[in-house]
């Protein structure tokens, strides 16, 4: 029996797509790289995912998990072909009010979870800007962040348990509502592993109470430098606001053109700051941020009057990537992170690189975390521009790493950033990562060729296994 027949038998024909146009649709995510799916399946639960994994292993076919396909690093692109497993049918939400948590199907959309929790005065903290489309499974796989992860941490801090299908089709439930599961933290390893270790079918997530009070404010600055300086100073003033987001003038203008959110288009940069908590603390913190902003030359400080006004300010921020479409057909962005103390100098260097390559660059980013998103709008059909965009991207990453940074803050490595892993890790570091992969996915069917560059395993060459090497030869 072919694996296609086996899949039809296990899931039913209606849940197996094989038409070329369907395969084409599911062969790319929101990055620029396209793969080629051999088949697309829609399992309904963990048991069906387990069947799919067994079939993939038996026929040695790659298996690529996919949520909404909003990933920006080709993580969900089937670049080695194989079975694309779409999780959207696994979409239950079971809220546990007493434990302030919820078991959530991998295919549930991030915003739907928060909408389901809101009537109970609860919310799921990670709020990627793509939250109206991306899935919890994708958030878990990429350890996604979002504006509000500054104070609350990324997805991994909010995952208490996982139902996951591992090698051999084994379904395991890791973690739970009780703290500190015993033994090695497999759950923590799987979060952020980009579908390379197994397929998450459900996640037990932490729900936080809605905050009693909030102040959202927009500060306009005459230079990007003065905005970035303010960010560094807010952090060093001894507070961690709920969010600190920076947008430069090009970005503000693009958003304004599209949405008319009332953003100040003449400012060189705007800072969106939010503080939450008890009223007394919120007022004091908002005051400090406003004062620091003014001391750095802020030309206006606008405090959201009410919830509608606040929602408008946030909509401007969260729609930023969508606004790029007016400028050019494609965009390419990095999401390197730098220490907050190096923000100002890094931003200057990033602008200098874009100017030197004569590229249209816009910036909208999680400044409070030092998580940059320099974004180049361009036309990918021109090979010369394509080359320039990628060269400039490499330089930007290099400068971030030189300033003590990391390759990716929240989008993941996928294929887009895979070969840059060598610029930040030693051979032994990568070998250790390759061992983690091998231990959990010995047959290598889960999302092959992602995250780790080829040859990461130090003893990959010539099929020589570690155990056969003479003693003492370990480097």
């Amino acid at each position, binding site marked *: 029996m072919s694996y296609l027949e086996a899949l039809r038998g296990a899931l039913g024909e209606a849940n197996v797509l094989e038409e070329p146009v369907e395969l084409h649709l599911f062969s790319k995510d929101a990055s620029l790289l396209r793969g080629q799916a051999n088949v697309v399946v829609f399992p309904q639960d963990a048991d069906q995912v387990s069947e799919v994994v067994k079939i993939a292993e038996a026929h040695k076919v790659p298996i690529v998990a996919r949520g909404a396909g909003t990933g920006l690093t080709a993580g969900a692109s089937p670049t080695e072909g194989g079975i694309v497993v779409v999780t959207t049918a696994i979409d239950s939400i079971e809220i546990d009010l*007493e*434990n*302030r948590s919820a078991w959530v199907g991998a295919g549930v959309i991030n915003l739907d979870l928060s909408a389901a929790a809101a009537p109970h005065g609860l919310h799921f903290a990670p709020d990627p800007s793509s939250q109206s489309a991306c899935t919890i499974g994708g958030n878990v796989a*990429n*350890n996604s*962040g979002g504006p509000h*992860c500054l104070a609350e*941490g*990324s997805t*991994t801090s909010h995952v208490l348990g996982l139902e996951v299908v591992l090698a051999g089709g*084994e379904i*395991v439930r890791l973690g739970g509502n*009780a*703290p*500190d599961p*015993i*033994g*090695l*933290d*497999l759950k*923590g*390893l799987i*979060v*952020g592993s980009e579908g390379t270790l197994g397929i998450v079918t459900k996640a037990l997530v932490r729900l*936080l*109470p809605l*905050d009693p009070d909030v102040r959202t404010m927009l500060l306009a600055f005459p230079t990007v430098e003065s905005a970035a300086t303010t960010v560094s100073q807010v*952090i*060093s003033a*001894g507070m961690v606001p709920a969010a600190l987001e920076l947008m430069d003038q090009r970005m503000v203008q693009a958003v304004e053109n599209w949405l008319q959110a009332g953003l100040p288009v003449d400012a060189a940069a705007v800072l969106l700051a939010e503080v939450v*908590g*008890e009223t*007394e*603390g919120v007022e004091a913190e908002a005051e400090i941020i406003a004062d620091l902003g003014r001391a750095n030359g802020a030309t206006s400080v606008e405090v959201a009057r009410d919830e509608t006004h606040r929602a408008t300010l946030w909509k401007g921020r969260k729609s930023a990537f969508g606004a790029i479409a007016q400028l050019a057909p494609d965009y390419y962005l990095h999401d390197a*992170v730098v*220490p907050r*103390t190096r923000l100002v100098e890094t931003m200057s260097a990033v602008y200098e690189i874009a100017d030197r390559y004569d590229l249209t660059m816009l910036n909208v980013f*999680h400044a409070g*975390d*030092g998580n940059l998103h320099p974004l180049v709008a361009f036309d990918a059909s021109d090979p010369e521009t394509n080359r320039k965009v990628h060269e400039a991207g490499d330089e930007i990453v290099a400068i971030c790493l030189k300033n*003590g*940074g*990391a390759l*990716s*803050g*929240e989008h*993941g490595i996928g294929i887009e950033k895979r070969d840059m892993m060598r610029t*930040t890790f*030693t051979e032994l*570091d990568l070998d*250790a*990562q390759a*061992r*983690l992969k091998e*231990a*959990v996915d010995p047959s290598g069917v889960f999302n092959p060729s992602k*995250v*780790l560059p080829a040859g990461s395993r130090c003893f990959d060459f010539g099929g020589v296994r570690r155990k056969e090497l003479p*003693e003492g030869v*370990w480097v």
Partner: protein
Amino acid sequence: MKSLPSDLARLATEPDTLAPESAEDVSSILRHASKEGLRVQVRGGGTRSGFGAPPTPDLVMSMENLTAVEAYEPDDLTLVVQAGARVDDVESTLIEHNQTAVLPERPGDSTVGGVIASGASSFKRGRLFGTRERLLEATVVTGDGRVVRGGGRVVKNVTGYDLPRLMVGAFGSLGVIVSVCLKLWPAPPDRATVTVDSPEAAAEVARPLAVLQDNESTRVYVWGTAAEIEAQTAKLGGGAEAGHHWPAGPVDRFGWSLRVPPANLTGAIERLPTEWRYVALHGVGEIRAASPRIDGAADLRSWAEDEGGRLVVTDSPEGGLDGFDPWGRPPPGIEFQKRLIAEFDPARVINPGRLPGGL
């Protein structure tokens, strides 16, 4: 024990105890141990040596000479510190800048590496989350002597697998932690401890730092600006003492960590045998307890495990367990855990057998 190679002999502080001074020393010791099949116990402050299956080492690796602060960036809220640094010393340095690493409040002699390896957390975990959320980067030496680094010195990072997180609660089974980068938190100088009538009363304030109940009373811990504290104290019905008064963990012949879903915490307290002393963390589901006898533990464990929790032995007198497993039922995915350990510590030399399931 056979005599040590000369490059290791210089590290001996006592017979069978070596105190490495660098990651390279740790590597030499572990390569030697892997070659000779020696069991190595890693010793930080020694405060948790009763945790997990009792060690029977051939060699003790003392972290006492790896205590340096390698980098402290107050303006970035990050700290890079060697694993042997005492928690107390680290927090004293940080508090001068009104910052904290949110490590356990009454650490005794415990070290940063020991806290991470045993997975211990601060009382403030209900608000600021546990130790596993503090770790940004880790440099570790695997059982076969490879020095590897994972993570990075920035507050947000998804570059590769989360190796640092895997070290939390791993009791060194994958490698010896040499240094870590921690995410810090501002520590407002204004603080108060408010005694309340019942844990339910704490619900009046949004996300307090901690709500602790022990055999005597229930207390809510808050910090912030003076105005915030005043407002929160009023909501809690007054009776605040200035500052944070953290309970010492109860100590007796047996030490316990009871972990249950937060909703089961009150039920768990009611089930504790009367002679047990305890500190319970509301909103978290953790109870730290101590007892003179083991009686009642088996029933408590079986109830906890049925509720999705655990009863773990954190301390016991020699021979006192009498076959009572320190961890209880093995965790799920044990085969995967075994394979991970085999990749990192193939000769199984670091703290062998100390993890659940005899790993």
